């Protein structure tokens, strides 16, 4: 004899509903019919869900790539998800949350070097100026001496790369917030974004103002208490611990301010624009 064994051990109850219209009571189904019926319903639902899941995955995988703009090279729905996720997680951002710092002795002597994009072209150090372009087009040209005259901030922290590695490094320089205050750029700091570019314009990043004004964001000119070597962005580079390494631009040529997102090298290649930590 066949028997249905519901897992929760309850007995299968007969429906006791009586509709107002006096209907002929339905013939009770045989066990065999019940099994077939329940199998049919279950497998239809199971099949439909499987097809939906597979179809959904195919749709996502084959979804169009976004047009090249400020961001590029990501599937349209995935880019939407990245941007929405950014909004959700930016709520947790606070300038009171500081990156963990370490004693100097823990800093790496051989500081990892990943790429030379933007800092490999011919470069005349003597001609270097930090060009600041305000939103209204006004310009400042600042020398490295002007920056080095200001109080230095040292930072020994765990530098985190989007590729997965991290390394404790010791950088020194001028806090970006101090830079803003000293050069009278407070009104610019009320805008939403900061853009930075290398002198050869080959590498560029866009930063939200909140992250740029974080107390541990520095315009660095020292690595392990010595001037930054050329391959790490001599004479001045960005160190922003609340972002992945991709945002830590080497050799700053120009700084701009805007309410629109400035262009960003890796966001154009499909990475998250925010890339915050």
């Amino acid at each position: 004899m066949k028997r249905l064994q519901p897992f929760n051990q309850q007995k299968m109850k007969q429906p006791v509903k009586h509709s107002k219209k006096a209907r002929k009571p339905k013939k009770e189904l045989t066990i065999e019919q019940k099994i077939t019926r329940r199998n049919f319903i279950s497998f239809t639902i199971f099949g439909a869900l499987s097809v939906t899941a597979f179809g959904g995955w195919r749709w996502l995988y084959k979804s169009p790539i976004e047009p090249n703009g400020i961001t590029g090279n990501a599937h349209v729905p995935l880019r939407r998800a990245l941007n929405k996720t950014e909004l959700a997680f930016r709520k947790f951002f606070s300038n009171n949350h500081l990156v963990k710092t370490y004693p100097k002795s823990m800093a790496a002597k051989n500081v990892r070097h990943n790429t030379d994009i933007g800092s490999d072209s011919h470069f005349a150090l003597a001609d270097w100026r930090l060009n600041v372009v305000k939103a209204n087009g006004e310009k400042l040209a600042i020398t490295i001496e002007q920056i080095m005259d200001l109080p230095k901030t040292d930072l020994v922290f765990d530098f985190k790369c989007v590729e997965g590695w991290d390394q404790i490094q010791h950088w020194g320089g001028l806090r970006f917030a101090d830079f803003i205050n000293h050069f009278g750029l407070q009104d610019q700091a009320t805008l939403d974004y900061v853009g930075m570019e290398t002198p050869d314009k080959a590498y560029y990043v866009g930063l939200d103002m909140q992250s740029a004004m974080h107390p541990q964001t520095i315009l660095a000119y020292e690595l392990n208490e010595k001037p930054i070597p050329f391959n790490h962005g001599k004479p001045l580079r960005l160190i922003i611990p609340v972002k992945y390494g991709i945002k830590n631009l080497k050799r700053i040529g120009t700084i701009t301010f805007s309410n629109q997102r400035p262009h960003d090298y890796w966001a154009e290649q499909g990475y998250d624009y925010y890339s915050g930590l």
Partner: protein
Amino acid sequence: MLIYWANDEYKITIFGHTYVRFFPDWYYNLLHIPQRLAEGMAFHFLFMWFFTLNGIFYVLYTIISGEWRELVPKKNSFKEAWLVLLHDLHIRKMAPPQNKYNAAQRIAYTAIIVMGVGSVITGLAIYKPVQFYYLTWICGGYHFARIIHFALTLGYVFFFIIHVVQVVLAGWNNFRSVVSGFEVINETPATIQSAKDETAG
């Protein structure tokens, strides 16, 4: 998981000799992975929502329905699970008695929830190590949290493979019961007389 494929960060090295490198070159080439970190991350940061919400709903369901009683290991589960393992490997003939799930399943299905919680916590710890610094601290720092997150991911792969193999081995009636929620039991009739009218039995 694609995130770990950008850079060979993880390897098992014992006394200076690297035994396993995550992942070997043939693995990257097989799956056409090089240069696709950004795409992998984009998928990851969409599906993290899906997996997390799915996990939350699943746990809520087991609590509300009372099904958790069938899933949580009992006192003797750990001892019994060993016997289940021996049975599954055809070393021991008898499997210990069970209700809906056997002891090994109870442990596995509870462990996977603990692993899921672990993945969410270590995930947040490495996703926003500055904002959620306390989570990063609980996980033993950024680097260690990353390793746990990675190890858990490998754990899911093993869980998945063993799980699918077990379902295939358990056969059709088991699979049907997984989908439909009931099991068909063919009872052997007690008397010879009644056996006559059973043809399907």
